[in-house]
């Protein structure tokens, strides 16, 4: 059974770590990186993820630039951007208009919504039904 690998990038360690934890709990493999450079390093030296969840506003290379570089070198990697800043939306809209496709969620994303979003992106509906994630599904259904 090959669990899909998810790379979480956020300069806020608390956010990156908790998100990575949530992804693992949901049934995926995950890894947290705290900046774009680290993320690139993981991609180059370790494993190509199925999905990269990235913050946008970060010191150094920002989330949008990172996404563009990743998209160029590892086109299969799906990308989900999360931003707490309104202007980010304008940038992403601009990129979308140029032919790129990014998903963008406004921070803070309720964890349950995020899990559902990731599951739908990875077409891992089984994640939601899997034994290890029964709790999640039940939580979602409750809502």
């Amino acid at each position, binding site marked *: 059974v090959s669990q899909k690998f998810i790379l979480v990038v956020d300069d*806020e360690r*608390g*956010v990156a770590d*908790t*998100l990575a*934890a*949530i992804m693992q*709990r949901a049934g995926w493999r995950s890894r947290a990186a705290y900046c774009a450079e680290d993320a690139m390093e993981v991609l180059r030296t370790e494993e190509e993820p199925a999905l990269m969840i990235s913050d946008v*506003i970060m010191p150094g290379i920002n989330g949008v630039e990172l996404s563009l570089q990743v998209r160029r070198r590892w086109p299969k990697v799906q990308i989900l951007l*999360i931003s*707490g*800043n*309104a*202007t980010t*939306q*304008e940038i992403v*809209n601009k990129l979308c*208009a140029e032919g790129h496709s990014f998903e963008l969620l*406004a*921070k*803070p*994303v*309720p*964890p*349950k919504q995020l899990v559902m979003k990731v599951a739908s992106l990875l077409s891992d509906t089984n994640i939601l039904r899997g034994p290890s994630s029964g*709790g*999640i599904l039940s*939580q979602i259904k409750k809502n």
Partner: protein
Amino acid sequence: MIVEDSEPDALLVERQLKKAGYAVSALRVESAAAFTEALASGNWDVIIADYTVPGFGAVPALEHLKQSSLDIPFIIVSGAITDEIAVASMRAGAHDYVLKDNIARLVPAIEREIREAATRRQKREAEAAVRDLAAIVESSEDAILGKSSSGTITAWNKGAEQLYGYTAKEILGQPMSLLMPPDRPHEWADILQRVSAGESIRQYETRRRKKDGTLIDVAVTISPILGLAGKLIGLSSIARDISKRKRAEEALERSARHTQRVLDNLTAMVGVLSVDGTLLEANKVALDLAAVTSPEVIGKPFWETPWWSYDPGVQYQLRAAIKRAAKGETTRYDVAHATSGGKMMMVDFSLAPLRDHQGQITHLIASSIDITERKQAEQALRSSEEKLAAELLVAHHLQQVSTELIQTDNIEALYEQILDTAVAVLNADFASIQMFCAERGDGELRLLGYRGFTAEAARFLEWVRPDSHSTCGVALRTRQRVMVPDVQSYEFMAGSADLETYTIAGIRAVQTTPLFSRSGDLLGMISTHWREPHQSTASQLRALDVLARQAADLIDRKQAESALRKNKDRLRAVIDNLADGLIVLDPSGAAIDWNHAALQLHGYNERGDAPVLFSAAADRFDLYRVDGTPVPLEQWPLARLLRGEEICDYELAIRPKPEGQERIFSYGGTLVRDSDGQILVGLLTIRDITHWKKAQLALVRSEKLASVGRMAATIAHEINNPLAAAMNALYLVSIEPSLDVESRKHLELAETELERVAHLTKQTLGFYREAGTPTGLDVPEIIDGVLDIYRPKLTNKSIAIHRKFRCTARVLAIDGELRQIFSNLISNSIDAVDESGVLHLRTSGPHAGEAGNSMVRLTVGDSGVGISEKNAKRIFEPFFTTKDAVGTGLGLWVTSELVKKHGGRIRVRSKIGKGTVFSIWLPAERRQQERESRLGDEQ
């Protein structure tokens, strides 16, 4: 006479005298009365008186004799006489005394005394003669003087004093040369020589010098004064002033010459006749007329002189006139004179008496005035009556034109009138009038009107250029009248298209007269044309000149009026199109004009609605400073302007009474004066600076907002990260299966509250600057999100929310902007309602839009205070607010701008006291729309 009381003594005396051979006639008197009577009655040779006579005597007799002034020898005869008596008698005037006893001495005494008396009488008489002569000389008006042979003046009478101005005292002893004029130095020597030769000079006219230096004309008679030995010892001269006579003579001569000259220079023929009709004198004109000299005619009876035809009728008429004139009557009649050339001359003849100063008729005066020309003129006048009538007609035409020129405004009709007159005056067949258009080409002529031409021919004349071969073209170049009596023989036209045009139109003769303004600018042309060769007369051309002057004035005036009107219209248009308001005031301050902007700014539709008087304006508006302090009437812009103050950027707030919308105006004002400094009008300009002023205020506020927005974005980011981490962490705990039920509930609460925090930050801070492409949005979700933000307010005011979401489509909009739209509307509604008010939130649609697209209708209504109709029109304007304290005046403007940006529209319906409903139409999302409509079909 013998004074004696004794007769015998008297006889004794008589006897003595008879004895001596005298015939004695004696009278004896013995009283004073008899003595006096005898003195008066007789011519006595001697008086012999007895010294003593009782009651009388020699001494009283002597007294009486002395009183009588008679010089009669008086001899006293006495018996005895003492020496004392003798002395007293001689002192009393007696000539001698004789004692009676020595009577023989009586006769010799008488004889001696009579001789003495005779001598005395002779001497007395001689003295009287000299005295009389001297008086005569002295009283003579002629100057009589004597001078010595050496020329020294020795005698000088009163007449000389008056004539020469010297008194006798001044002149006596002076040389005669004093009186001689300086231009006759040798006259005195000449006179002396002639007089010395024994000659008397009589009435010699010469000139003498007066004391004051003036010269007088005198006639002098000079005679020698010869001494006893016949030697010349002096000269006497009698001089008479003849200046007056000289002057009178000269005047007479001058007058005669003058009269002759006057007579000779008269154009009338004048003759002087004696009362019987004999010609005495004739003037030059008269003599020349008959080519005769005066000796040939003077002395002849007037009726036989060569001026008169020898027709008996004419002679009879003249003689009758002479008879009447001799009786004092003047006769005057027209008659013919014969002239030297044998022609007859018609004269106005008159014969009148001439009287002297006593009224006596002394002469007759005949005069004749040549009336040939007058007679001829009368004849000519009669013969030209027809011509005169024609000219009168022309004058009448011209006068009519000039009258109408002043009175009529119909310029076309006047052109017609001028053309008609031109035709009439010049007896022409065609006429045209053209206006000079300097701005076209090199300056061309435009046809204004024409007479006689066909419309087709007129088209040829529509425009004439300076290179044309027509008379108009020539006149255009030369600026002078052009007359072509026959176009066929006019070289300049030969072979030209213009000649062809004339020929086709049937024109043989043309004249063109240029029309000039009084300042000398070319205005146009007036032309007349004839079918036959034609030459106009000078008088016709003169009339044409008058007409041309009038036509020029007309065109000039009309052009000036038109320019003026155009100017006025333009000015009016400029004034009315000014963005600034302009009120024109007369010197009393009454508003005589408001431009459109001024009317609009004050809320008037028409000029008639606007107030004229200041007081009326004060009744209708409140004026106060921008900071809210009141402005007294004397500080109103109009009042300041009328005081002569220049007003510039005077910013005031104005609000129509009783409660209108406040505007902020910037006033300007100036007084327009004439050259004498009198105020013509006042101009008050008004600029609405409300927007600008409020923008200024809003700018300050929006700067704050913007900074708040920026901060909000930062804060949102700063909050979101820890929030996300916390939420994530809680989530991780909550999915721990080992968690007991109680803890799980607490975790869930924490999660819910954290999500609410996240939601709030997104709503309040998140949509600032948020933009993007429209996406399909779920309206109820958005509305609920907005309501969440205002939850505390809604709860506080106990406002009930009534939702009715019937829209089946999602709205195509930008999330943040749609939220802002609702946020603004809901916020306004919350402000508008009282406690326990109601908010209605509804959706409906999709409806078919105007452009064929589907629209979703979103409604936000409230049960609030409502908006007045007037304000409702303006609520979407930027910076319009009724909430001065808290409003920016931007909310609804932003809302409407956002709606428009989304391709939607917004409407408001409101009623004061009932509430307000905002309706928004926004495009529906197509895909969703289709899906939902399918669902709708299934239902």
